[in-house]
């Protein structure tokens, strides 16, 4: 098991304007399930392809453990990659697909058969070896791709949106399965997705990317509860980001004034750079906002502009002096209606200062 390190890696494509990947530093630990998460065009796939060796970085270094692989061709990196469309060889059987990498490594005969069988068993496809690729369902093809990547016992497993071509139910089953296999093999894995729920459910750590840059690296909990920027707050789950005047600033917290006049002491990250009379961006999740009467002095008074009943929660959109806030309430005392006046309770412990 080895870790993967990216040091100030950038990638510019000829003819394209800016950098597709801009000065990315990542340190992925051995055995970790690490996810690159971001919207399309954020540079996550380019980053993965640089790790696989399909692109060489314009600048910076990539290391597998202590070995510098920056300019190493893909066939000499010993990574196992699962492609978005699986990229199974249509002219080969399932077993021949899985055995392709073994053949190149000159592992033949009984040993090859044993390892192919083992890999197919691992992905619950024992007995499928003689099938043709076009005889498999999408989910089965996906598992063949995984077996083909794992059978060569690669140093790292690279997964490029492997679930995006599956339907919703199969997607959830498969992500549990991938995580189980990864844990059993104990293999360092780098996973690319734009689906934040997938990233949250599977990852040890997540790097959130936007515009070619890494905006935050952390465990799912850290990223959810302590998003670094307004973008991360909004991209991971849903979030209300309020712009509030700062009354006082300290090293790890700031006092802000809410629209109703109440004040809150809100935790802030180190080096938040806020001073008195600046305006702070404060995030709070919809499910952390409480409901009360509009006359409550400690609450934000507002007017309901939309009500959406989803079963588990009731989602309210509330207009608070020009700013729209989303509230996800599990228990709603009375049936709220559009136009009703309502009070919102924002607990200071659930609020967090984010960077723009």
């Amino acid at each position, binding site marked *: 098991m080895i870790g993967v390190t990216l040091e100030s890696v950038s990638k510019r494509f000829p003819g394209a304007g800016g950098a597709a990947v801009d000065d990315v530093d990542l340190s992925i630990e051995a055995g970790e399930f690490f996810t690159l998460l971001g919207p399309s065009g954020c540079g996550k796939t380019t980053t993965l392809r640089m790790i696989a060796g399909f692109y060489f970085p314009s600048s910076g270094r990539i290391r597998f453990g202590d070995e510098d692989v920056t300019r190493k061709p893909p*066939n000499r990196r010993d990574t196992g*990659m699962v492609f978005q469309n699986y*990229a199974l060889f249509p002219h080969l059987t399932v077993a021949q697909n899985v055995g392709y990498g073994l053949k190149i490594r000159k592992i033949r005969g009984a040993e090859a058969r044993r390892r192919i069988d083992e890999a197919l068993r691992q992905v619950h496809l024992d007995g499928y070896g003689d099938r043709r690729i076009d005889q498999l369902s999408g989910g089965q093809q996906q598992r063949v791709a995984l077996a083909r990547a794992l059978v060569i016992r690669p140093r790292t497993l690279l997964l490029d949106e492997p679930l995006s071509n599956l339907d919703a139910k199969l997607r959830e089953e498969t992500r549990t399965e991938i995580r189980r296999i990864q844990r059993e093999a104990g293999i360092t894995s780098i996973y690319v997705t734009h689906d934040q729920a997938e990233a949250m459910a599977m990852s040890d750590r997540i790097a959130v990317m936007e515009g070619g840059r*890494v905006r935050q690296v952390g465990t799912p909990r850290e990223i959810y509860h302590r998003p670094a920027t307004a973008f991360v707050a909004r991209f991971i789950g849903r979030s209300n980001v309020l712009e509030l005047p700062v009354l006082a600033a300290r090293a790890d917290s700031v006092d802000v004034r809410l629209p109703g006049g109440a004040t809150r002491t809100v935790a802030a990250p180190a080096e938040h750079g806020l001073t008195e009379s600046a305006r702070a961006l404060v995030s709070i999740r919809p499910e952390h906002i409480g409901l009360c009467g509009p006359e409550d002095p400690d609450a934000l008074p507002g007017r309901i502009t939309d009500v959406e009943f989803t079963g588990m929660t009731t989602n309210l959109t509330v207009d608070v002096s020009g700013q729209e806030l989303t509230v996800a309430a599990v228990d709603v005392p009375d049936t709220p209606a559009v136009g009703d006046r309502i009070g919102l309770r924002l607990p200071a412990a659930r609020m967090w200062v984010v960077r723009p």
Partner: protein
Amino acid sequence: MTVATTAPPTPRTDPAAGTGRTGRARRLADRLRGGSDGGWFPYLLALPLALVLWGYVVQPMLATFVESAGGDGVDNYLAFLSGSGVARSSLLTSLGISAASVLCCGVVGVGMAFLLKRFAFPGRRLIEAIILVPAALPPLIGAISFQLLYSETGILPRGLQHLLGTDEPVLPFDGIAGVLVVHTFTMYPFFYLAASAALAGMDPSVEEAAYNLGASRVRVWRTVLLPMLTPALVSASLLVFMTSLASYTAPLLFGVDRTMTMQIYINRTNGDLPMASTYASVLGVVSVLFLLGMRWYEGRRSYRSQSKGISTHRREIRNPVGRWLALVGSVLATVVLLAPVATIALVAFSVDGSWTTQVLPTDYTTQNFVRIFADPRAFQPILNSLRMSLLATAACVVVGVLVAYAVRRLTFVGRGLLDVAVMLAWALPGTVVAINLIAAFSTGSPFSLGQVLVGTFWIMPLAYFVRFLPLVFRSSSAALAQLDPSLEEAARNLGASWLRAFVSITLRLMFPGVLAGALLAFVHGVGEFVASVLIYTASTAPISVEINNRMYSFEVGTAAAYGMLQVVLIFVVMVMSGRLERGGPTAREATRWTN
């Protein structure tokens, strides 16, 4: 708490520094094994390809221009502008024939497409099956069969004369009219295929929307259907125009001397290479302009339906009169479409010299075929054609596949030029290709290893290579477009070197497309006449040239027998590549599983 990554700053070192000599050697080895990832790799592949295309396509074209400009070059070019010379009238005749061909082919091709794709009537399936037969004939045999059928000495005019008891043959086609008949029959498929494809890709709901909004049938045609077909029709027009301009056999057989291609031939055989080069340069430039116009136009507009709805229903013809007309029309169309092949087959069994003024040959024999196979001298042209076509096809496959790969899969400066050079080979008429090679290789050149190629065996396969490279290139390129690049990447990721991944995955999966292109190139090679007739020698005469020579010495039966062999070969190959396109058992299996 971790917020945003800040990896410890590591000192940046130049990868070349520090590790020294051994490091450099290792990196070089890495690159060599790495292949396509190195920045220079695309150039390693593209450079030899560029040299081949330069040496055998572009540079010969320039050599022709130099040849034409030498001596009284300016006078030669001025002849095209001045009043009543042969040059000017040839250019105008060529352009006129081409324009008329476009019109005739357009009417026939679009009409056929509408009839067959929009209406259901008895005989439709049969006609659809054989509609491309006339166009599949080798150019010389196509023209000869029409001459045997429709010219003054042809079967139909004489048959009508016999039937009606007139003094002269009835409705003979001669001169330019004859050329137009040949062009219409052999080139209408450009329009038919383009219009059929456009009709098939058209969303029927667009038409229904027009009816729904209150438009009459005529109005729907005028305001919806025809405008939507326009891009397909313009492309087809340009193709037919280019092909007509390049047409050589039809003017040759119907005796229209004042066309560009005929003038090239006449000047060349009279030994006036500069004048032949002048004609070739002018024709080449016009053809290339048309090619560029076509590419520009195709890049500019295309209507494609957005919806995935059902395709148009064919309208059943219910009117009884209409049904009878359709039936008669079907029978007539079938006869007309099959007549050329039937004629060649019939005449192939006629005794040489026995067919003079009768409607049909009177004496039949199998001796023509026996003699071709028994007499080594008569068999030589067949051997020549097979050998030269095989050589050319092999070269076409190697260069065509690699150029397609380079153009489609690699990024390098000058990629577009490579693409253009192949298309140039496609745009140039066969006569021009021949003159270009004569001009370039009548003295030693680095590309011929210092040898004079004119008058040798090698210039023939070289001409075939230049003419048919685009066929292999296009089918390879289409096969590559169907292939997901990540397949090759997956192989690389699993440890395969570039070469191994290319051979075991990419080339393996391209194979059906490449084979189809190679078969097409081979068949065209065996049928080649236009370039061959300008560069063959007594010992390298291919089948088509032999046919032409036999026609001149009135051995019509033997000529048709050679032609029949070409036709049989073509149909065997057509059936084979039809199999390839539909896919083998695997593709059928796949469709069964996905449905």
